[in-house]
């Protein structure tokens, strides 16, 4: 790998990692709401979560741009709070990646949450665990396979995210040029095939490593699933 490629890899890892970590609590909260409670407008929320999946990525990027533009509703807020903008910044790339990863993470986590045996949570309550402790010690670990699967899916998606990112935060070397943007640049160039393949192989390698890591984690924690 050249130094440039190495920098791109580091940036991609940063963007993907931060995207997944920051999206995780939100995804979990949404999955929880969708799995465990019923309220008017639940279908609408569910649909909203799926938006970034259904819309072409460039449209999602465009909507993000509307929101985060200096005069956009979120953009003004961010400016007030941090005195800065996420446009053209790696933080914006992470936001785009996180938004695209969200529906995948929510679904996987929700599937696992729905499979958690509520009788075990009841047992924990009778043993003196309040809602929080029950959640942390019982629900969360039992839903772990889904959480890990969701993180893996989300990370892979973040690693491959192109359309929303370039539309939202453009393609700035060292700041927002993640692997897929670098690949795209090469693909647009006549004769860029060799570079495309090299960069794509790097992407795939990273994803494989993440996959192995998530499998190992899942195996280390997913020992007993059955209840008598």
């Amino acid at each position, binding site marked *: 790998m050249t130094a440039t490629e190495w920098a791109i890899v580091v940036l991609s890892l940063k963007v993907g990692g931060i995207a997944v970590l920051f999206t995780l609590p939100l995804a979990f909260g949404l999955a929880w709401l969708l799995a465990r409670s019923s309220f008017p407008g639940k279908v609408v929320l569910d649909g909203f979560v799926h938006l970034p999946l259904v819309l072409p990525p460039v449209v999602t990027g465009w909507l993000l741009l509307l929101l985060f533009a200096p005069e956009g509703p979120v953009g003004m807020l961010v400016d007030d709070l941090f005195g800065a903008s996420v446009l053209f910044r790696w933080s914006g790339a992470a936001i785009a990646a996180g938004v695209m990863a969200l529906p995948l993470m929510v679904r996987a986590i929700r599937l696992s949450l729905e499979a958690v045996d509520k*009788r*075990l949570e*009841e*047992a*924990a*309550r*009778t*043993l*003196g*665990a*309040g809602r929080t402790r*029950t959640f942390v*010690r*019982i629900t969360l*670990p*039992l839903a*772990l396979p889904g959480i890990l699967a969701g993180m893996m899916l989300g990370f892979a998606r973040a690693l491959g995210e192109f359309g929303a990112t370039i539309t939202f935060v453009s393609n700035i070397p060292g700041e927002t040029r993640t692997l897929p943007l670098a690949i795209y640049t090469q693909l647009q160039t006549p004769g860029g095939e060799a570079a495309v393949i090299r960069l794509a192989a790097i992407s795939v390698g990273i994803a494989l490593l993440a996959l192995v890591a998530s499998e190992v984690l899942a195996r280390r*924690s*997913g*020992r*007993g*699933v*059955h*209840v*008598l």
Partner: protein
Amino acid sequence: MSFDIDIEVARGERVISCAFRTGDGITCLVGPSGAGKTTILSAVAGLARPRRGHIVVRSRTLFAPGIDLPPEKRHCGYVFQDARLFPHMRVRENLDFARRPRFDRNEIAESLGIAHLLARWPRTLSGGETRRVAIARALLANSDFLLFDEPLVSLDPPRAEEIAALIRRVHEDYELPVLYVTHDRSEAKRLGARLIDFEGNEVA
């Protein structure tokens, strides 16, 4: 008075109602299969919400109009009919789940014959081993009263006898009210229990 219970609990289309007061000893709630014994224990533990009535244990009101303590505030040790061990924790962690244990974990494990199982995952336990771990877990919780739902099924008679004696000892030493469900009269006798039906009438 240990338990003062008068409730109605809805289950599907049925309504299970039950009213009794118990004295100091261990009380066995009897009734045929499907009568609603498990339902009543759940309501006492705070896991099923009665449609009306009250649940008072040792003059502490757990449930009454306007009062409905959450399960974790009721301080009960509950051995479920289905053992409900936490599958993602080893036996040791299952036993240590409740904070401020009343007994030494290892002693209890010893007396229930599960000391050698502490490092095992629940799914590797036999039926009787599973029950014993569930009993140990409930006894270790520092509770104000105990609920047992057929805890000794799947246990060989000598072992069952031992554990019955242990339960009786705990009941007496700590003056804990015990509500117990079993179909085994000899087990009830061994516990020195009084048998009552859903209306609180003594059963021969």
